[in-house]
């Protein structure tokens, strides 16, 4: 069972962090970062299966590939921004974490612009001029 391994990894990491935190806080942060990376890597493998399914369904429903691709990139950016923000918040830098989240939102907006224009144009098309 994957979840048992992940939970035990989390508990082991938290114990190790508590041990190492007094002498060397920097090593504790490395441990937190590595644990986050390992758990993320295992989750990413399962996420890629789900995303392949989404792409397959999109192709079957002959939706324009560009939309699906943009959505996947938006999910990727959200994942990464959230990961970076939480790691920096763990290190104690709440302001930097907020900046990372802001950057993530802005980048997602930038990616969503073509989709928004397409939606608005179709809506305008419905309105009888």
């Amino acid at each position: 069972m994957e979840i048992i391994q992940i939970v035990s990894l989390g508990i082991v990491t938290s114990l190790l962090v508590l041990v190492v935190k007094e002498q060397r806080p920097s090593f504790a942060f490395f441990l937190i970062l590595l644990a986050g990376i390992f758990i993320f890597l295992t989750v990413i493998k399962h996420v890629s299966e789900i995303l392949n399914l989404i792409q397959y369904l999109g192709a079957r429903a002959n939706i324009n590939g560009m939309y699906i691709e943009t959505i996947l990139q938006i999910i990727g950016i959200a994942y990464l921004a959230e990961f970076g923000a939480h790691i920096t918040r763990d290190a104690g830098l709440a302001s930097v974490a907020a900046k990372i989240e802001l950057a993530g939102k802005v980048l997602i907006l930038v990616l969503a612009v073509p989709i928004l224009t397409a939606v608005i144009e179709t809506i305008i098309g419905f309105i009888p001029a």
Partner: protein
Amino acid sequence: MLGDASVLFQIAGIGIIVAMIHTILKQMGKEEYAQFASLVGFIIVLIFVINGISDLFQEIKSVFLFQG
């Protein structure tokens, strides 16, 4: 997953050993060597973590079709 746990233990071990070396060298009076030892330990672990981060970003790039 098992490999990951061993890497975590190695890094924790390095951290504890570096801390011990630091205190021992400090008691012996050699301050600079203590700083060098902890710096070397820090760099070793940094290399470990940077490899992990690059794997993660590579994985994310391949999964989420990042062309840009």
